[in-house]
C-alpha cells in the first residue's frame, strides 16, 4: 500500500509539477532531415501575412480568454502584431525601433528595442517563429520533435533563459514554410495557444503596414 502511495506521489509530481517531463518523454531530438526541410522552406519566405486567434488559459480566470488579430512579417526585420478583438492594441517593429498603440490612447508611442527589454524579448520570439530561425532557436532552446507530419517542435528553454517559460510547441504548415500554431506553456501551468490562419506567403505588403498604427 505504501509503495502505491509513493508511486502515485511520483506520478502526481511528474504530471502536475514537472510538465516538462511529460513533453520530454514524447519528444525526439530534431532530425537533420527535418531541420533541413524547415530551413529550406523558410529560406524562400520573404513576406508573411496571417490572421491569428489566441486562446489563453490562465488559472486566475475560470474561462479561456479569446482574442484575435493579424500578423505581418517582411524579411529581414519588419513585423506588425496587432490585436483587433476584444481590444485594439499592437505594435510594429522596423529594425531596432518600433511603435506601439492601444485603443485607450490616441496615436502611438515610439520605442527602441535596446531600451525596452520586454519588447526586445517579444521581438526575438516573434522573429524566430516568423523566420523559422533554427540557429537562433538552437542557442536558446533544446529543440525536439513531437510529431513529424505536420512538423511540431518542442522547445525547452535552456536553464539560463528559463524565466516564466516552461516550453513552447510550434506546429508548422504541411509544407513547413510557415508556423501554423504556437503554444506557450508557462511554468505555473498557464498556457496560450495561437492559431495562425489565412496565411499568405510572399504576398505584397504595403510599406505603411510596418510604419505606424493605421488610421481607423
Amino acid at each position, binding site marked *: 500500500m505504501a509503495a502505491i502511495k509513493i508511486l502515485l506521489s511520483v506520478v502526481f509530481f511528474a504530471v502536475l509539477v514537472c510538465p516538462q517531463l511529460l513533453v520530454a518523454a514524447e519528444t525526439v531530438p530534431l532530425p537533420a532531415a527535418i531541420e533541413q526541410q524547415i530551413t529550406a522552406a523558410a529560406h524562400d519566405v520573404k513576406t508573411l501575412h496571417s490572421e491569428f486567434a489566441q486562446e*489563453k488559459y490562465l488559472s*486566475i480566470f475560470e474561462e479561456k480568454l479569446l482574442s484575435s488579430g493579424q500578423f505581418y512579417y517582411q524579411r529581414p526585420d519588419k513585423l506588425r502584431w496587432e*490585436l483587433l478583438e476584444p*481590444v485594439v492594441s499592437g505594435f510594429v517593429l522596423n529594425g531596432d525601433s518600433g511603435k506601439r498603440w*492601444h485603443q485607450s490612447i490616441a496615436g502611438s508611442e515610439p520605442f527602441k528595442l535596446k531600451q525596452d527589454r520586454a519588447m526586445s*524579448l517579444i521581438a526575438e520570439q516573434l522573429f524566430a517563429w516568423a523566420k523559422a530561425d533554427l540557429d537562433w532557436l538552437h542557442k536558446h532552446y533544446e529543440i525536439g520533435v513531437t510529431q513529424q507530419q505536420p512538423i511540431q517542435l518542442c522547445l525547452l528553454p535552456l536553464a539560463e533563459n528559463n524565466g516564466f517559460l516552461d516550453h513552447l510547441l510550434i506546429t508548422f504548415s504541411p509544407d513547413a514554410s510557415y508556423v501554423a500554431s504556437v503554444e*506557450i506553456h508557462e511554468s505555473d501551468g498557464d498556457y496560450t495557444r495561437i492559431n495562425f490562419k489565412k496565411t499568405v506567403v510572399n504576398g505584397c505588403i504595403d510599406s505603411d503596414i510596418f510604419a505606424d498604427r493605421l488610421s481607423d
Partner: protein
Amino acid sequence: MIGKLYTFFAHHTRLLLLGYLCFVVVSIICFSRVQRQENIEALLPDTDGTTVRRDFNLLQQAPFARKILIDLHYADTEDIQSTAIDNDNKLKQAAVELCKALQKPLFNSAIYAPPLSKKHRLDKLLLQVLPNLVTEDDLNKIEQRLTDKSITGQLHKLRDQLLTPQGWWSKRNIRQDPLQLWQIGAGHLRQLNPMSKADREQLDFVSADGTHRLVVVDTSVTISDVVGSRQLIAGVHRAINSCVPEDIVATIVSGHMYTLANADTIQHDLKVVLGTASAAILLIFLFLLRSWRALFVFLLPASVLGIAAVAVATLFPVVSGITIGFGAVLLGITVDFTLHVYFSLRGSDKPGQQQQLRCLSSQRSDQLPGLQYYVELSIAWSAPTGGILNDGNCFIFSSGFGGDAPSLWHG
C-alpha cells in the same frame, strides 16, 4: 637613585652618549611603527547625548559620498582633425578601458553607462517600501483606487494587458500588485532625475553636445579617511595615465579630492610652522644656554614623542595623526623641566651638586612645575572628545619619560 646614576654617567660620558643615541633610534623606530590614522572621526564627540559622530557616519555612508566622477573630454576640439564620430568612439574607448582598470580593492565598481541591463525590479522594490513612502495625498489616491468602479476598470485594463505579448512578462507583477500601487511610490521619484541630460540614444553617460563622457566610480573609502583617499586618488591617476590618451582630459570630481586638498594644506602649514618653531626654539636654547649641550635639552624631550606614541598605541591601536600633533605640542611643555634641571646643575665643579640632585629626585610632587600640567590634563581627561583624551594620554606618557630623563644626560 638619580644621584647615583648621575655620578655614574658623569664618569662615562661616551656610554651616556651611546645610550642617548639608542634612545633616539628606538624613539624613531617606535614613531615609524605606530599606525597613524588621519581621519576626522577621531575628533568627533562620542559621548552620550551627542549625535555628531553617528550623523557623520551616516553621512559618509550616503552613496554620493562614495562616488568618484571622472569627466572625459578632448583638450581642444578645434585642433582635432578627426571627425566627431571618431572622437566619440575614442572617448568611449577611453571610458571603457578606464572602467576596466578601476578594479577592487580600492574601487567597488566603475560604470560608463547606467546599469540598465541589470534586473532591478524597481516596481517590486517600490511596492515593498510603499508603507514608508506614502503621504496623506497618496492615501487619498489609494482610497480612490479602491472604489468598485476603479477596481472594475483596472481589472478590465489588466485583462486587456494579459492578451498582448507583453502580458507574458507582466502576469506575475499583475498578480502581486493588481492595483499597481507601486506607481504611487514611483511618483516620489519623479523629481529625482540626476541624468536628465544623458544621451538616451547611446545609453551611455554622454553630455548633451556629445563632447563629454562620464565615468562613475564607487568606492568603500570614506571621504574623511586621508590615507585611504590618497591611495584612492593615486589609483585613479594611475588608471587614467595608463588608459586615457594624452589628448583626452580627465577631470576628477570627488569628496576625496576635497579631503586631500584640505589635508595637504593643513599638513604643509603644520610642517612650516612646527619646523620653523622647532628651529627657532633650538636657536633660542643655543643662544641663551651658550652650550652645545642645549641640543640635548631640546632633543631629549622631543625624542620621547615616539615612545609616547607607542605607549598610546597600546591603549588605542590606531593613533590619530592629530593626537600625535597635539601630543607633541603638549610635550614641548616638558622641556621647561629639563631647563630647570639644566640650570640647577650647570657647572660640574659647582659645590653641593649632589645635594641638589638628591633634592630634585626626592622633592614633593607639588613642587615639580611639570606636575601642574597633570592637573591641567585632568580637565582634558574629562573632555568629551576622543581626540583630546588621546592627547592627554600622549602627554602623560611623554612627560613621564621627559620629566625623569634630563638628569641622565646632564654633565
